[in-house]
């Protein structure tokens, strides 16, 4: 079966990508998977300058998920282009570069720097990382701020742009509509949810950063709801669904409610071959249910219980 899908004009081999922040910069996984066989590799977010990230502990296990506060550790865009991006391009991977900046201008400069880099298929804007110094950097909590970033990036690059949004808002559709109107080619839904856990023995937060992003199957129903809500409001807008996908059924769930593709995040921490195995399982799921291609799934969703 042909599993390929079209995402914002880019042909993906499968509709299953590796999610940002959960696959390193891709090269770490070259010993575990054939990078070229994946739907795509969304890199860990890259900033203009290197960032060292937060102190440890950076992660805490929670029911059916985990909290993380890595703090966007990355080597900076120059080292990324010279090392990781080149490696991924040479490996034949479909690369989605995740970008993070402190203001629209930084996002614009990052996009301009990456424009025309060999191997780059798409750009994803990390507008929603909860592990930042100021909530003002979580652009996706404000439709106008998010749209401004998208406009700055669209002026700087011809590469298709995904805006990654957070569910930690009152009106997600308003944010999705604002970034769509600003020229985003697609949406990634959702980022981690802002959370916190306390060690009751020491009576201290379990993360050095106090709060962190919740991921894993615990947040999957939130992701499904968000994809469904936005797909209804913005028909035809490509959506990458992500949040707690660990199996083919989880992927199918997001595709049924309107995602064009899905990204496996925390699942890769437990199973380094999760991205591959979810795609393989999805192929079996489609065959079992007599569905010709992943793109047919949204139309087969029965909206009423």
């Amino acid at each position, binding site marked *: 079966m042909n599993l390929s899908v079209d995402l914002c004009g880019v042909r993906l081999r499968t509709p299953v990508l590796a999610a940002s922040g959960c696959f390193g910069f891709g090269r770490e996984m070259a010993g575990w998977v054939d990078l070229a066989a994946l739907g795509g590799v969304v890199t860990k977010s890259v900033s203009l300058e290197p960032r060292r990230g937060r102190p440890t502990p950076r992660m805490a296990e929670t029911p059916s998920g985990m909290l993380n506060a890595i703090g966007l*550790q990355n080597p900076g865009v120059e080292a990324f282009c010279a090392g990781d991006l080149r490696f991924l391009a040479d490996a034949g991977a479909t690369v989605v570069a995740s970008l993070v900046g402190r203001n629209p201008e930084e996002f614009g400069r990052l996009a301009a720097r990456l424009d025309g880099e060999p191997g780059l298929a798409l750009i994803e804007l990390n507008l929603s990382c909860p592990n930042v110094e100021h909530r003002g950097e979580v652009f996706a909590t404000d439709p106008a701020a998010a749209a401004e970033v998208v406009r700055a990036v669209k002026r700087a690059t011809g590469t298709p742009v995904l805006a990654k949004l957070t569910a930690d808002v009152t009106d997600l559709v308003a944010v999705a509509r604002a970034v769509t109107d600003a020229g985003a080619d697609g949406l990634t839904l959702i980022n981690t949810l802002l959370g916190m856990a306390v060690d009751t023995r020491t009576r201290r937060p379990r993360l050095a950063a106090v709060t962190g992003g919740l991921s894993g199957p615990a947040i999957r129903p939130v992701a499904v709801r968000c994809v469904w809500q936005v797909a209804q409001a913005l028909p035809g807008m490509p959506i990458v669904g992500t949040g707690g996908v660990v199996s083919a059924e989880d992927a199918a769930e997001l595709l049924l409610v309107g995602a064009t593709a899905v990204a496996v995040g925390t699942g890769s921490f437990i199973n380094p071959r999760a991205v591959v195995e979810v795609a393989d399982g999805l192929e079996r799921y489609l065959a079992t249910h007599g569905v010709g291609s992943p793109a047919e799934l949204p139309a087969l969703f029965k909206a009423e219980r």
Partner: protein
Amino acid sequence: MSPVRERCEVLERRRVGAYQALTLVAPRVAEQARPGQFVHLLAGEDRSFPLRRPFSIHRVERPGAALGTVEVVFDVVGAGTLALSRLRPHDVVDVLGPLGRPFTPPAAPTGCLLVGGGYGTAPLFFLATELRVRRCRVDFVIGAASAGRLLDAMEAKRLGHSLTLTTDDGSAGRRGQVTDPLGDLLARTGAGQVYACGPMPMLAAVSRVAAAAGVPCQVAVEEQMACGTGICFSCVVPVGVEGPTGLTRMARSCLEGPVFEGTAIAWAELGHPEPEPSR
């Protein structure tokens, strides 16, 4: 040689003092494993999505004459280790390994001082076995909170030329920290290399004593870890300064460690005094 994922049968689970030892039939891990490396374990078919748990390798039987087994030692501290402590022979554990950078053996035979704290002593037995094959003299210093938490002192006595025990409460060996007898032992044994594994404050202190004596020291760290494969960036350790930016480089202990040179770690960033080289 690269890490593999194996579904492994439990051969044996037994108590070792206050700890649990788990022996897994893992031929592909066992044939590659080096002292200081770790395995990342996931027990059972729990649908609640637990993360893996990392453990340094305590003992290896290479495949061939033997089945090819890997043994780890752990303390029951939470839900994950509790699940592992309930495993029975023939249960299946999902294993990633061997992961991480191993201890580097001395280039030529030399005296080695092996310093372990609590269950952190586990990888030092595998290391001692290999050092003995390389004709190195091995002296052990093992410390713990109390006598029951000293890991496998009899085995250390068998493998080493000497064994020094310390406990916080004085219930076995001398009362105090593993670092207390270290200076004397370095002088007396003329050791050319120190290897240590245990809690971070202990590793900082051992690094300091070794540096003051001018003896190279390798430490195996234990940081909170999710993936074990380098993709989550949880298990980082600050290792000095990177290039022109002046930023501390946060090294992933699953890829660049868990073994580091004691002098490479930026201990001050972790709240511990830095080693000072001998003059």
